[in-house]
């Protein structure tokens, strides 16, 4: 099955998020209060490893396992980049979760994660409806 590889990678990703406790609200509060290196170490080392990997892929013009060339799209700046970023940051400190951890929490059996996900979907839907009226 073509999608099973994404299901497998997602499962591994979810296990890592859970075992490193980054899906805990307490860890996010610890981060925003600068009281532990844990979250900074995780985000920082993830970026370093990701950066080195992308450099390797680019320099060696690596292809996917199906032989297609790997393409990296450039992200575009809009005013939403910082306004939306600020809005997400407020929600991040309230919920202690980014979108990924929300799904891991749900899987771990946290009932409130279901409410958080529905609220996040409502947020995404509202943004989509208001998109033309917001500064871009």
């Amino acid at each position, binding site marked *: 099955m073509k*999608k099973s*590889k*994404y299901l497998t*990678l*997602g*499962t591994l990703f*979810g*296990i*890592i998020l859970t*075992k*490193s406790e980054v*899906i805990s*609200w307490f860890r996010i509060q610890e*981060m925003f*209060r600068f*009281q*532990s290196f844990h979250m*900074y170490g*995780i985000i920082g*080392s*993830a970026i*370093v*490893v990701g950066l080195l*990997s992308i450099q390797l*892929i680019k320099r060696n013009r*690596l292809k996917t*396992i199906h032989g297609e060339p790997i393409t990296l799209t450039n*992200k575009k700046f809009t005013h939403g980049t*910082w*306004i*939306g*970023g600020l*809005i*997400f*940051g*407020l*929600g*991040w*400190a*309230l*919920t202690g979760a*980014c*979108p*990924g951890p929300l799904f*891991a929490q749900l*899987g*771990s*059996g946290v009932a*409130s994660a279901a*409410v958080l*996900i529905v*609220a*996040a*979907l409502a*947020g*995404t*839907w*509202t943004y*989509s*409806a208001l998109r033309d009226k917001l500064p871009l």
Partner: protein
Amino acid sequence: MLDLLRQPWPWYVAGPLIGLTVPALLLVGNKALGISSSLRHMCAACVPANIPFLTYNWRAESWNLWFVLGIALGGFVGYRVLGHPDVVAISPDTVRDLQAQMHLTDFSGLLPKELFAIENLANWKGWVFLVLGGFLVGFGTRYAGGCTSGHAISGLSNLQWVSLVAVVGFFAGGLLMTWVIYPLLF
């Protein structure tokens, strides 16, 4: 080996593994790591309501939904199968501050029950932490064009300055909530 897996993983194990997800997704299918788009796909699949931003072929992006389903499965395996400590071992300073500022007493589980219990929907705490909090996450990540995975990990790994702007915004918002708004709320 199993004992090692059962313990909470230190940052220097988890961080590099998260980083490796970036090349793994590129190598298996030319996909950029990012999770907040899944929320958009779910909206497009369930309530498109003729909104231009939600009327597109979301099925073409369904890999993202499979990835997210995997994350939920991973949450189950990582927490229920591999086991977990009852209390996340955060810094004693954080425990002290949360007790003093937010009057938290129960530090068990992943989220403090005093703020996130479903029953809290009957008072202001539930609406602020569960509903407003979740709403800001969904609204903000889409407006910013990505979340911690799409901008902080994926974007910064690819040296996108736009992602740096987004990440500075994420932290500014988080610090504002923690240091300015929380003291006003409690």
